[in-house]
């Protein structure tokens, strides 16, 4: 089963050849559309302008590569790791200074983009994934995937039983907890007696439906091999964190991580660090409470940073989370062209989740003049979708995101989140109680 990894690498070789838009991106400029592949193998339908822009972008990527190589040559291959001033006071002031300049250089450089070939290496160290991985045995991922692959335990038989009768979500979760406990015992307690084949199947059914529905038509992701790799990453993660389990949206994120990182294992660790350290807590759990919090923070920020747009949209009764929810849950992977999405991710992994707000605000900001002339919800959505789908030049977006939005620190965002949290929890709680009372009424 791990033999596929080398094939993944092979499958990636075509990448260096060309650029494209995603199948989900349809050009609105009718008539003269061309289909081509982008840097990450997505089929893009665009007009001639789009092709030209993509060619320019490819040239910029090459130039940016030269900058990185030059830095490696002058500062050493892993210079970007020496950006934090160590706790030991033994550091000389000149070392401190060089760490500081490295940090500043790196921040600027990353906002201009990491060359695709360097992405796996740099993402892995900067995001903290490497550190996370180093805290467990080397065989962690292999053991985990083996453990969840096709074996039967008493607990899974219970699940099987549950599955044969109609079960509610809550039953499902209880059973899930049971199984996971037994897995933890088996995994950490008695070595490699693999648990949970049937449970796996249960969960697989959910994921399985989604595998061919994740970027359909992609030359690698949409193959049996791509599906299998994506499934292993998603299922492995669902066992690592039972609260998250599998949440739709993660399929897109994990798929793109696979494309970038090239090995399942690294993609798995990137997913782990993203969910556990980078993004707000509970973004993908049970009732997506983290995501609700982010949406409220975003609404407030829009009112503060783009007051004209915010008040106009309010007059249309347009709730920005109607469109922004998908941006936050898929980290733009369903909306922006692939290289633009990954440029956003470059910065997220270096600067944190606040970047999502910068970018989301920038999308609105870029279209301020058009948005305030809209009369209707449909028009607003149309403008935003057309804009995101055609943002082939990442710099168009990132320049606005970092130069025109004004700075936002992670600290400010955290404070905002804390402010919104109680209200969100209260509302979600009330809702669940209302729904439960509906159900008991029914009985």
């Amino acid at each position, binding site marked *: 089963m791990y033999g596929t990894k080398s094939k993944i690498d092979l499958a990636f070789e075509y990448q260096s050849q060309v650029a494209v838009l995603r199948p989900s991106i349809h050009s609105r400029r009718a008539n003269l559309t061309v289909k081509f592949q982008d840097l990450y193998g997505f089929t893009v339908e665009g007009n001639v302008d789009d092709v030209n822009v993509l060619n320019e972008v490819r040239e910029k990527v090459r130039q940016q590569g030269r900058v990185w190589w030059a830095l490696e040559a002058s500062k050493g291959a892993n210079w970007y790791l020496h950006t934090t001033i160590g706790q030991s006071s033994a550091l000389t002031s000149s070392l401190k200074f060089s760490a500081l300049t490295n940090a500043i250089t790196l921040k600027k450089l990353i906002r201009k983009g990491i060359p695709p070939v360097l992405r796996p290496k740099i993402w892995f160290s900067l995001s903290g994934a490497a550190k996370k991985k180093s805290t467990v045995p080397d065989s962690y991922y292999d053991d985990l995937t083996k453990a969840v692959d096709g074996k039967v335990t008493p607990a899974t038989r219970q699940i099987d039983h549950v599955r044969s009768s109609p079960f509610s979500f809550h039953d499902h979760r209880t059973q899930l907890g049971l199984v996971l406990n037994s897995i933890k015992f088996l995994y950490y307690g008695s070595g490699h007696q693999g648990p949970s084949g049937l449970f796996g199947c249960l969960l697989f059914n959910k994921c399985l439906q989604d595998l061919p529905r994740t970027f*359909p038509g992609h030359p690698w992701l949409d193959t049996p091999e791509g599906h299998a790799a994506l499934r292993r990453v998603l299922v492995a993660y669902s066992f690592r964190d039972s609260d998250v389990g599998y949440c739709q949206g993660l399929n897109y994120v994990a798929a793109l991580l696979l494309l970038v990182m090239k090995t399942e294992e690294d993609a798995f660790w990137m997913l782990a660090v993203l969910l556990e350290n980078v993004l707000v807590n509970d973004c993908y759990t049970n009732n997506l409470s983290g995501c609700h919090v982010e949406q409220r923070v975003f609404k407030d920020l829009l009112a503060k940073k783009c007051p004209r747009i915010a008040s106009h949209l309010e007059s249309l009764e347009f709730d920005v989370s109607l469109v922004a929810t998908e941006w936050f849950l898929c980290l733009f992977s369903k909306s922006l062209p692939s290289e633009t999405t990954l440029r956003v991710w470059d910065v997220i992994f270096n600067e944190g989740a606040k970047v999502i707000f910068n970018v989301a605000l920038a999308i609105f900001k870029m279209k301020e003049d058009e948005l305030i002339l809209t009369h209707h919800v449909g028009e607003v959505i149309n403008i935003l979708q057309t804009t995101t789908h055609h943002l082939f030049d990442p710099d168009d977006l990132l320049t606005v995101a970092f130069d025109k939005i004004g700075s936002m620190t992670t600290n400010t965002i955290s404070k905002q989140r804390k402010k919104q949290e109680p209200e969100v929890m209260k509302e979600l709680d009330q809702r669940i109680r209302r729904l439960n009372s509906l159900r008991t009424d029914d009985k």
Partner: protein
Amino acid sequence: MATIGHNNLNAKLVGPSTPFRFPLFLSQYFVSDDLFLSSFRQVLLGDMGAGKSSLVLRFVKGQFLEFQESTIGAAFFSQTLAVNDATVKFEIWDTAGQERYHSLAPMYYRGAAAAIIVYDITSLDSFTRAKKWVQELQKQGNPNMVMALAGNKADLEDKRKVTAEEARVYAEENGLFFMETSAKTASNVNDIFYEIAKRLPRAQPAQNPTGMVLVDRPAEGTRGASCCS
């Protein structure tokens, strides 16, 4: 889009595909929703994989994809339908089906004039989910909401788990109208939207108080409003 409308319908789809466009220079005289175009918000709810997006895609674009990208949050589409002497513009919110996305649903069904609750005839679980949605809408939704129950994937007769009779009885008891549909074969797809359009009260105000739409806006309105996320 030319594939739309091969069903035996009185309805004529006047969407982006039809050659007729209301002359732009006249459109300024028809700015009222009530006079010419009523616009209604509609929401699709149902279990993951029941075929909500496929139904909308079939209705709006006349297409069917064996593997439709999974919807995250919700996707927006619009389509205009001529029903007898009136023109109805649907603003359709196609929602994500996974259970945990449930908490986002009120944002989409709040203020909706119509809902299609979709289940998959080959899955009992999805029928159970559909009933829960009906219950929730009855308690939490707009009281005048027109509700339709769609038993989708009707082409998979040999895998059927939910009988049409069972669903029909349930729908009747709960004041919904019921159709079995197939996004794949297009069976009953236009019909169910058309039936909803017929049942919508014409006098009902449009969702957006400020939604005074110019009748035809080739640049934005109908042309690109269908989405593909």
